[in-house]
């Protein structure tokens, strides 16, 4: 088990190195750089060149990458923002809490609501409840998140006045962005839970369990649910990464001070140290979640662990 964990962590480190180089290379071919932006439209070509030299932007890509990698790996230093001069690590930390709060709130919401809905639909296959869940999930998956967000604001903040418009603040401020972010996930989980449970529902051992005279509750809880839920765990892991790294639109609309907004603003400002740092952080989280998901699999389904060890 420990060996498996170490192996997974090692490959995660390799992935991070590959991601950091990929981001560096992509940023290198993006038109425009921070020197041009800082120097302003009225600056002469010489001014821009001088600034570029001062910031080390005129060095070849491999040199810049090795300098970055050296500082990051040996000293844990992600550099400074090219625009504000603040350490990238500080900027990331200042936004990370908000991102995690929002992601976990949405995860909790989508997990409870999504699983319940999927379970009900699976238990009543073909019934009205099933139809309703399927219709609502199709809607939930296809509505664009910015539109849903604005609708939530119009209804719950302006018309009804129950909740605040803006994200940051007390717990009541968390509700609307969490719901907006959770909606597609609820739909996804509900559909997945339903179809997984239906697969298991028809399995031989379930029929056997019923035939043994076990109560409906025990069959569903110990046989159908426990076995059917494995793919959902995998999907959840992937989706949590998505909730952490892909909430930019929601963060923007609800003025939520998260990581996504920081990165996108940094891209528009061509503030590359911040972009690289943030992408690495998000990649790291994905990797860690993957490891956790694999571990969870090993725990829930002993076959996985034995094969790997």
């Amino acid at each position, binding site marked *: 088990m420990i060996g498996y964990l170490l192996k997974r962590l090692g490959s995660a480190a390799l992935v991070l190195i590959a991601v950091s180089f990929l981001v560096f290379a992509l940023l290198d071919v993006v*038109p425009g750089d921070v020197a041009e932006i800082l120097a302003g439209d*009225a600056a*002469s070509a010489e001014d821009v060149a001088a600034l570029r030299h001062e910031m080390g932007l005129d060095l070849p890509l491999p040199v810049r990458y090795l300098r970055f990698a050296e500082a990051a790996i040996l000293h844990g230093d992600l550099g400074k923002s090219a625009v504000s001069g603040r350490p990238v690590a500080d900027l990331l930390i200042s936004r990370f809490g*908000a991102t995690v709060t929002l992601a976990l709130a949405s995860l909790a919401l989508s997990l409870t609501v999504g699983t319940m809905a999927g379970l009900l639909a699976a238990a009543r296959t073909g019934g009205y409840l099933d139809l309703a869940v399927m219709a609502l999930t199709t809607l939930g998956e296809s509505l664009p998140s910015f539109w849903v967000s604005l609708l939530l*604001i119009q209804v719950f903040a302006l018309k009804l006045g129950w909740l605040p418009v803006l994200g940051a603040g007390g717990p009541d401020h968390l509700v609307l962005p969490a719901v907006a972010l959770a909606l597609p996930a609820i739909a996804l989980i509900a559909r997945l839970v339903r179809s997984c449970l239906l697969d298991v529902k028809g399995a031989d051992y379930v029929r056997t369990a019923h035939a043994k005279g076990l109560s409906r509750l025990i069959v569903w809880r110990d046989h159908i649910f426990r076995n059917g839920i494995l793919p959902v765990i995998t999907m959840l892991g992937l989706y949590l990464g998505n909730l952490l790294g892909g909430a930019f639109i929601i963060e923007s609309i609800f003025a939520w001070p998260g990581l996504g907004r920081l*990165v*996108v*603003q940094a891209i528009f*400002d061509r503030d590359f140290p911040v972009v690289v740092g943030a992408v690495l952080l998000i990649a790291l989280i994905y990797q860690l979640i993957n490891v956790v998901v694999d571990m969870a699999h090993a725990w829930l389904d002993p076959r996985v662990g034995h094969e790997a060890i």
Partner: protein
Amino acid sequence: MGKLRYLAFLILIIMVAGCGQAPQAPVASATQAPEAAAPTEAAAAPTEAAAAPTEAAAAPTEAAAAPVAGGSVTRAITAEPSSLDPHAAPGSGQNVILPYIYDTLVYRDMDNNSQPYLAKSWEISPDGTIITFTLRDDVTFHDGTPLNADAVVFTFNRFKEAKSSAGAGLAGMTGVEAVDPFTVRFTFSAPSSVFFSTLATPYAGIVSPTAVAAEGEAFGQKPVGSGPFKMADWQQGTAVVLERNPDYHWSPANIANPGAPYLDQVVFKVIPDASTQLAALQAGEVDLIFINSPSHIAKLKADSNVELIETRLNSLIYLGFNEAKAPLDDVKVRQALSHAVNKDEILQAALGGTGQVAFAPMAPTLPGFDPSLKQYELGYDAAKASALLAEAGFSAGADGMLSKDGQPINLTLLTYARAPNEDVATIIQSQLKAIGVNVEIQQFDTATAAKAATAGEFDLLLWRYDRNDSDVLNINLHSKLIGSSNRFAYSNPQVDQLLDQAAHEMNDATRAGYYVEAQKLIMADAPWQPLYIPVDVLAVSKKVQGFQLASMGRVMLNEAQVTAP
């Protein structure tokens, strides 16, 4: 290579922002974010939100009764400032906040004239190369340090060394020295007419030398000036909170309250999305926003809790022609395309009737604008446009599209993603199609579009300037700047000479005269077709009373009070 670069940018955006969200997501982000990124020349041009109301400062309601002390006003900003150090590179958001924290030597009145502020008076030497300021002797910074000649000398040396693009107006400055504790002398290699407008920008705010020494790099996070409000709290990613400076008693002449502000707090909330700003205002979570979307304006007109005040900006939207590319090197073609553009239609269709048609290259709020220039406008005249193109050797094919020597005329129109550029570009596209000219629209994020514009990768450029000085014409149209800020390859020696004279003329009236003459030549050469002057609308909750609008779109809160709604 060019195409590849844009593709790489797109991949990056999708990778980071999209991440499997709804496919609509990246599109929405592209239209929202550049707004925050202070596009066009805002970076080069030190204007605060670039707004300059033309109407005299109009407080919505005069507070006749005794002022109500206390309370807080919340204003929405689209982007969080990266730093509140005035000498840091101008970025988004900071120019809105700086004027509350810092005072400047002079301020600009509504006619863009310099008026005393921290400087009681000044004297310009006959040759224009020495300017001596006499300072107020009763001003202290928020940290208690006295604001004297040494602080001013420190500030301007620091500002010049910072090489901030906002400090370009200090280029001719050779020295600054303290003559006595409250007298400062600036020396110049040649007279510099842009110096005074630079002084009035928030970027020329006087900083506390003690605080700069104490804070070092953190000064941008813990700014110390002498303004009516001082830094209280910075909630990263969410809000900047300023509190009242109880010692303030040196407000300039345009403010009736000589003492400290009545408000306890001013809060700047970071709200990137314009629709959210609107909702937050209607929900009472913010008190003050700037809007420019016609549909939002219409929505707020129906809201009885909100006051709408139109501000006109020191800005111009124009269509520029790249003279380095055929057939736009032919003045007849440029004139023809200018005549083909129907500006009234643009205003009606893309701006919902807001804004004002422009005819001269100079924005009407800047010195050097003259209503008589209207007679030189290449106004809408489709027949004349076709005639000029025929003179230039173009003839229409069976499909009505023009060509010359078998070559059809296909033009690329470059612009950046910010409402309503896309609509304006589309209307221009259809207007030019009507006279047989094919236009392809390219729209990118601000930085990408600016890069392509400076590299000359366009035929037509739909662009905007925001600047509080008439030297905006020097920056954009002087031939010595071809390849950098003169993106149009426009060159006219007579125009260059007039622009040079204006740059070194310290007499305002004479200087304005040079600009009027230069514009007559420019309008005939047609490197630009001026399109319109944008309007920003200040929307304020009615519970805020007694605020004032000053030049450059500043909202002065020295006299503001909050009353129960």
